[in-house]
């Protein structure tokens, strides 16, 4: 029996680690997606941002963020208190004691799984502010966001805070991760302004096509794959029949929601413009994934497909609308993760009888409110102190030269053209 418990602990830990590795892989997905969707002259910089924000998120969350989000003992339902570094892992005795309270996977594997989530949230931000935000201001924001802003609202829900108590339901993070990242992005975009030349005085929208569509597609496939870890791992346990079935259903639903998102987005753009804009299909896949993330377990596969499809339609209209509002988001991050994240949260009560619209709205308001305003203040401080936007000349020549000193494709393009 003890050996069985140990083996079960090992399996759940391994499942957690593999899921975490898949979510870590999403960092590559965001990098490629964003690198493909910006212009060539801003590509090296967005890559630098992506790999650096991932590194910063990992360190900040280890130092303090994890403890804020999952405090040993919270001060209150609203404020967890602060402590530092990671504690010791479970002992064999504690595990083999058995019973409902016995730990059933390694605490370190839990940290690993959680740390890649905060990095995901932060990755959402980089795309929306691409092509004009200063590198070091951005990285400073990343530090505070991953150490504090994200963990606090994460505590409210997953760390046992008031949102958890209120019945707010968010299985794998349509709100806690995706909408949270989008809220920070929106605050940044508002203070930053649009890329120069993006919107004409006459209200016209000037396209600034992404330089590398295969990269953007690769990024989307990576994210799709990584999402199996994101949603599948969020079941937190696989070691019995019921849990194994649950994880399997989550894989199926996650996959079908993405599929539904692609098809719906593609048909939508086809109907409106008669062309099959690949970038919208890619956003559709991601929208499908975000839409199902709040509840990938209770819908049937057919419903999951439809929910994903809803996300795919919504994201197209959201992207056009944001452009009308002159909110310039080069990769569509606010639409994909924010607008569709809200959709995902509102869909939960349709299939999950434990959820209700009131709590969902409360959760949306709390997460969005906190993240948006905290971010707005932080971006504002950065703007006042060091500036968050590169100069006109730097923007014209591309931030690769001014921030990184290198070009992403030195032989394929001519600098400054």
């Amino acid at each position, binding site marked *: 029996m003890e050996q069985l418990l140990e083996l079960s602990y090992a399996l759940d830990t391994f499942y957690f680690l593999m899921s975490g590795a898949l979510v870590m892989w999403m960092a590559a997905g965001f990098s490629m997606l964003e690198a493909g969707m910006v212009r060539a002259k801003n590509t090296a910089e967005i890559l630098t941002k992506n790999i650096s924000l991932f590194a910063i998120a990992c360190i900040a969350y280890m130092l303090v963020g994890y403890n804020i989000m999952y405090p040993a003992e919270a001060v209150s339902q609203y404020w967890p208190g602060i402590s530092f570094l990671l504690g010791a892992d479970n002992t064999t005795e504690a595990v083999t004691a058995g019973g409902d309270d016995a730990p059933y996977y390694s605490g370190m594997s839990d940290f690993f799984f959680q740390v890649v989530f905060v990095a995901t949230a932060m990755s959402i931000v980089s795309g929306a502010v691409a092509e004009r935000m200063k590198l070091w201001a951005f990285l400073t924001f990343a530090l505070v966001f991953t150490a504090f802003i994200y963990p606090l609202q994460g505590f409210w829900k997953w760390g046992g805070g008031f949102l958890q108590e209120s019945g707010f339901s968010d299985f794998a993070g349509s709100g806690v991760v995706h909408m949270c990242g989008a809220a920070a992005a929106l605050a940044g975009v508002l203070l930053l302004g649009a890329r120069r030349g993006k919107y004409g005085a006459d209200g016209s929208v000037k396209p600034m096509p992404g330089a590398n569509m295969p990269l953007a597609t690769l990024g989307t496939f990576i994210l799709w794959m990584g999402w199996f870890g994101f949603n599948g791992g969020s079941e937190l346990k696989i070691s019995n029949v019921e849990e194994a079935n649950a994880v399997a259903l989550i894989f199926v639903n996650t996959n079908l929601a993405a599929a539904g998102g692609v098809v719906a987005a593609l048909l939508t753009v086809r109907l409106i413009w008669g062309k099959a804009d690949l970038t919208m299909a890619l956003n559709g896949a991601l929208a499908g994934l975000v839409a199902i993330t709040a509840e990938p377990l209770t819908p049937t596969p057919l419903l999951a497909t439809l929910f994903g499809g809803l996300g795919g339609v919504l994201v197209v209209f959201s992207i056009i609308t944001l452009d009308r509002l002159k909110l310039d988001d080069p990769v569509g991050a606010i639409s994909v993760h924010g607008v569709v994240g809200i959709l995902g949260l509102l869909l939960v009560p349709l299939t999950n009888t434990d959820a209700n619209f009131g709590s969902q709205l409360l959760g949306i308001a709390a997460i969005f409110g906190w993240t948006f305003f905290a971010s707005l203040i932080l971006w504002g401080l950065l703007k006042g102190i060091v500036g968050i936007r590169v100069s006109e000349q730097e923007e*014209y020549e591309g931030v690769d*030269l001014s921030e990184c*000193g*290198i*070009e992403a494709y030195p032989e394929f393009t*001519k*600098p*400054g*053209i």
Partner: protein
Amino acid sequence: MKLVTAVIKPFKLEEVREALSGLGVSGITVTEVKGFGRQKGHTELYRGAEYTVDFLPKTKLEIGVDDGQLDEVVNTIISTAQTGKIGDGKIFVTELVNAIRIRTGEAGAEAL
């Protein structure tokens, strides 16, 4: 007829094109070029080694014009392409012996 060859800053292309269209110039041929001149290049850095990029991106316009239009074309280019900063570029004018429209075989001023 004259061939006007203008080397300008790339971001001025659209403005110049519109101004020339306004004059009734019906055709322009554009080439991406690199220019070396008084304007100095910038320094880049790669893995600890610095290097200077001497050549700057410029855009070259070639426009075949009738003698009567020459002055206004040249002046329009000057006024729209000018930023007043070093590196604004040059205009060269050469004599055209002939000009032909391939589609129709028309020659001379009608071909422009």
